[in-house]
Structure formats: structure tokens, C-alpha cells
């Protein structure tokens, strides 16, 4: 047996080797939670189209402890998604130049987070602000 056995660097668990890769993986895995929330809403829309009884069954489901626990997890993951989305935005968008100076990364991130804050407050007021 004279076969060559060249060293091949194993790639198993490559993303656990480095903090940078861990952050990358955490950011990518938020996608599963975004899909999960979309499916919860999709179920609600299907139930809504089936009439009052069906929709109220879906609402009862939302009131269960499991659902509230799931949404607490979703909330934490979505907050992380908001943070990570705007922290990588300086790298994913083309360079922004204002009066000859490149806008620094932190300013882009801060502007994005500020937009998210304003949009969220507007949504909250639209949903909860009107007394009925």
C-alpha cells in the first residue's frame, strides 16, 4: 500500500472554531425563526378565510402557554436579527459617499437601527394606540 494520504484539513464543525464564524452562523440561523413566524401568520390567514369559528380557534392557540413561550423566543431572535441585519449593512450595501467622505460603518448601522425604532413605534401606535 503505497497510496498517498495527503493531509486534508477536516471541515467538520468549522464554524465552531472562531467567534467570527459563530456570529455568522447565529445570524444565518435566524432565518429558521423568521420562517416559523411567517408560518404562524400564514395559519392565521388561512383560519381567517375559513370564518369566525376557525379564526377564534387560532386565537385560542395563541393564548396557550406554548405559543407565548414560542413567541418570547421569536422576539429575542427577531431583536438579534434586527441588530445583526443593520450591523452587516455597511458591508452589504454599496459605499455611501456624502460630500466627498465615505459614510462610516457605525453611522449606517445607527441609521438603520433608528429606522427600525421609528417603524416599530409607528406600528405599535397603529395597532394599540387607537382606543376603540
Amino acid at each position, binding site marked *: 500500500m503505497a497510496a498517498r494520504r495527503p493531509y486534508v484539513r477536516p471541515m467538520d464543525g468549522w464554524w465552531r472554531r472562531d467567534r467570527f464564524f459563530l456570529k455568522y*452562523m447565529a445570524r444565518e440561523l435566524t432565518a429558521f425563526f423568521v420562517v416559523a413566524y411567517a408560518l404562524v401568520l400564514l395559519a392565521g390567514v388561512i383560519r381567517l378565510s375559513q370564518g369566525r369559528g376557525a379564526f377564534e380557534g387560532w386565537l385560542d392557540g395563541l393564548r396557550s402557554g406554548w405559543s407565548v413561550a414560542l413567541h418570547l423566543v421569536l422576539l429575542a431572535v427577531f431583536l438579534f436579527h434586527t441588530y445583526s441585519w443593520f450591523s452587516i449593512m455597511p458591508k452589504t450595501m454599496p459605499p455611501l459617499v456624502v460630500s466627498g467622505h465615505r459614510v462610516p460603518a457605525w453611522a449606517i448601522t445607527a441609521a438603520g437601527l433608528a429606522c427600525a425604532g421609528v417603524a416599530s413605534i409607528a406600528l405599535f401606535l397603529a395597532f394599540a394606540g387607537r382606543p376603540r
Partner: protein
Amino acid sequence: MKRSTQPPFWLLFGAGGMLSALVGAMLVFLTGIAAPLGLFGAGTAFTYERAAAFAHQPLGKLAVAAVIALFLWHGAHRIYHTLHDFGVRLNAFTWLACYGVALAGTITAAVALAVV
């Protein structure tokens, strides 16, 4: 020259990522926590009347469809490309498992909203 099919998927990924980053956390809080627990009294009560009235307006339909569809396309694109990082071979099956779910969800949401 063969054209890449990537731009439309990337666009949907970006739009969904931006929408979920802007209002996703607040949506989860309102629909999944505040409304079911009645945290802010009658104003946030989630009732059949309120949901149906919202989904009857064209803009309401558009908003609900946009959230569901864009969140699904965002997730599908990201999961598909992350599978590769875990050493999963990308083929027609994995493509369908990701983008097919997003497409089916989009069509289902559109049909349900049209019926509402």
C-alpha cells in the same frame, strides 16, 4: 451566455430581511405576546372583527401578504445558502425544500387573502 437566476431571489431575500429587521420584533410582540395576553387592554384586543376588517381592505391584504411572503422568501434563501455551509449538497431537492415552501406559502396566503 447563461443568465444567473440569482438576482430576483437575492432581491426577495433582501426585501424580506429589511422588512423583518424593521418591524419583525414588534410584530411578534404585538401578535404573539401583547394581543393574546391582553397587555394593553381593549385597544390591542385581537378579534375576528378587527382582523377581518383589516384583511378586507386592499392595503391590509397587501400588508399581510407582504409580511408572510417576504419573510418566507428571506428565510428560504438564507437557509438554502446555509445548508451548503453545513456540507449539505445543494440539488433540486434541497432547492425545492427551501424555495418551494416559500412559493407554496405565498400562493396559499394570496388565495386565503382573496377569499377573506
